[in-house]
């Protein structure tokens, strides 16, 4: 396996030499998170002290060049042990604050974390976002313990989220990765993960650090790489995920492009793994499940529908080069429906996603153009979902998502037989369980 080193600064290397080795490493990627990162640092320190008092642990803040004093906040923040009735770890908890190098993005920040983890020979790692408001010390136990003590290599988060929160996850990434790889990992791009030191070294050996993986694509890449390479995977129930809006002005089509592009890139990397998988199986889930109240979210349905209609009309010239005529006709007819009759059926949605993946695979045009042109259709699906589930409870919505996932699993042969026509004879779906 190729090994791709990055150059850690001399200061970091000196700190690593000083530390020698640690058992647990927790990474926090950040960029201008001074407002929120202090809470995350305190939760991590308290969690490590409470649940792993005998282990040497290190908190690494991998920063992307913040100008708001994020790194200073990390250096100065510390858990208030008196208020949580704990004693501080006696010289066992350390901090390392460093700017990362490479393409600006979460992936590059993680790369520095993996590198430090390998140099220190850590047994278990976790990474958590710097904008979390709902993180508690218990998250450390839930993300780290399965890797440290239960033999798992990858711990994916399981959150309670508002029914309209994480719509790319719900309508594309979760159902698609579940249908492809046969594992029901509910939040494959959750952002907060636990993993073994062995897996961190494995990640580091992959040559992806100059691609979209280095940006938004890192989360799905970590999950898929762990699953596709046979690492032992579980989920941890973390409760609610409440965090600052990433960037209210962030371009939706850019996010969609980076995430979906990573998913398709992984499909191209692991066709031998996903092609023969049929159905899906649950993965073990740790943590005490409970329900929480979540803040309501405002959804501008009219705007979404308007963008869908505009997209179907104006982008039809592009769609006709990779969508079959019947599907395109359906999309056009849906654009004429009024709001109360606007229903984007699962089967058509699944086939749309598969057709976009196939268009990327066949390189009918630039991948960025293909995926960005999915944006209006995605908004149409989200609008349809919102209309359908307006009065539904969180449980009902989860059930509705389960139906969507099953539609992806049912329709998978449609993708498989078109993915590599030459390989058609060898396609024999089998159950993953």
């Amino acid at each position, binding site marked *: 396996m190729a090994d791709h080193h990055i150059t850690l600064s001399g200061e970091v290397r000196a700190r690593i030499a000083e530390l020698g080795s640690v058992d647990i490493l927790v990474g926090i990627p950040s960029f201008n998170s001074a407002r929120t990162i202090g809470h995350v640092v305190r939760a991590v320190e308290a969690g490590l002290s409470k649940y792993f008092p005998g282990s040497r642990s290190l908190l690494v803040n991998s920063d992307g060049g913040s100008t708001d004093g994020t790194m200073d906040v990390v250096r100065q923040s510390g858990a208030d042990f008196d208020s949580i009735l704990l004693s501080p770890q006696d010289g066992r908890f350390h901090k390392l604050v460093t700017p990362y190098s490479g393409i600006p993005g979460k992936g590059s920040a993680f790369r520095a974390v993996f590198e430090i983890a390998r140099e220190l020979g850590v047994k278990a790692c976790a990474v958590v976002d710097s904008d979390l408001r709902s993180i508690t010390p218990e998250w450390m136990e839930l993300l780290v313990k399965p890797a440290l003590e239960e033999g798992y290599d990858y711990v994916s988060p399981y959150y309670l989220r508002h029914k*309209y929160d994480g719509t790319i996850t719900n309508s594309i990434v979760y159902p698609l990765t579940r249908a492809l790889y046969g594992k029901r990992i509910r939040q494959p791009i959750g952002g907060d993960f636990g993993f073994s030191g062995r897996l961190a070294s494995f990640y580091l050996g992959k040559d992806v650090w100059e691609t979209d993986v280095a940006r938004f694509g890192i989360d799905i890449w970590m999950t898929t790489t762990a699953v596709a390479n046979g690492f032992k995977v579980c989920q941890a129930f973390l409760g609610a995920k409440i965090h600052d809006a990433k960037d209210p002005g962030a371009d*939706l089509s850019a996010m969609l492009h980076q995430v979906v592009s990573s998913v398709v890139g992984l499909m191209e990397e692991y066709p031998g793994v996903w092609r023969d998988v049929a159905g899906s199986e649950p993965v073990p889930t740790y943590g005490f499940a409970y329900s929480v109240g979540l803040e309501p979210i405002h959804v501008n349905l009219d705007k*979404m529908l308007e963008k869908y209609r505009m997209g179907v009309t104006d982008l039809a010239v592009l769609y006709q080069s990779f969508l079959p005529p019947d599907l395109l006709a359906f999309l056009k007819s849906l654009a004429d429906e009024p709001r109360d009759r606007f229903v984007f059926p699962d089967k058509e949605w699944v086939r749309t996603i598969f057709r976009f993946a196939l268009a990327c695979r066949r390189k009918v045009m630039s991948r960025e153009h293909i995926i960005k042109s999915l944006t209006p259709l995605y908004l149409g699906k989200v609008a349809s979902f919102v209309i359908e589930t307006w009065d539904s409870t969180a449980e009902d919505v989860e059930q509705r998502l389960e139906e969507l996932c099953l539609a992806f699993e049912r329709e998978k042969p449609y993708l498989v037989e078109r993915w590599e026509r030459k390989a058609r004879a060898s396609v024999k779906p089998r159950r993953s369980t």
Partner: protein
Amino acid sequence: MKSFIAKVVTEPLQGLFQKAAEYLPTVLTGLVVFLLGLLLAWVVKLFVVRIIRLLKLEGAFLRSGVTDALQKMAVKDTPAKLIGRMFYWLVVVIFFILSLSVMKIPVIDELLGRFLLYLPNIFVALVIMAIGVFLGNFLGRAALIASVNAGIRLSGLLSKGARTVILLFAAVMALEQLGIARSTVVATFTIVFGGIVLALALAFGLGGRGLAAEFLEKRFKKEGTGPGEDKEDELQHL
């Protein structure tokens, strides 16, 4: 009478036949060279088309929009066949001039020299146009997708505008390279392009004052947005 006929008819005819007999081998050589050129042109065409297919460039032409652009211009050939055909005619023209050169006519020799000197300009102009078509299609498509995603209503017009400007720009550069009406083309382009920009500036400046004011107000006075107004989504997509 006999001497008159010999002087007026026979001698000139003899001279003509003699000159024709002297010149005939040269003409035949020229003809053979031209026929060889036709044969070679046919081989070159096949070879070029085969190479394009071997390198799988047809897919690249399709992706870059070259195939589409040709179809829109009512060109029935695929890009591979078109390039093959271009090479065919290039070889035919070269061999035609060579065959004339073999006949040792001074005017033709001069023409040949000029043509060979001009040939690189044609090649560069073709490359410029090919890049222009590729860039025009790519950026036109990018503009279309970006404007649709931004909810801009005239996205089709924007896309076509971007594409046309780039194609125009490439055409002007190609014509300049070929030395065709150099100053006229550049002046026309400058006037037309400047005119478009001025027209757009005036249109947006005068017609879009209200829109700009509304945009700035929304941008800097978000707090005042009322419940019935057009609120942004709070969806977290990731």
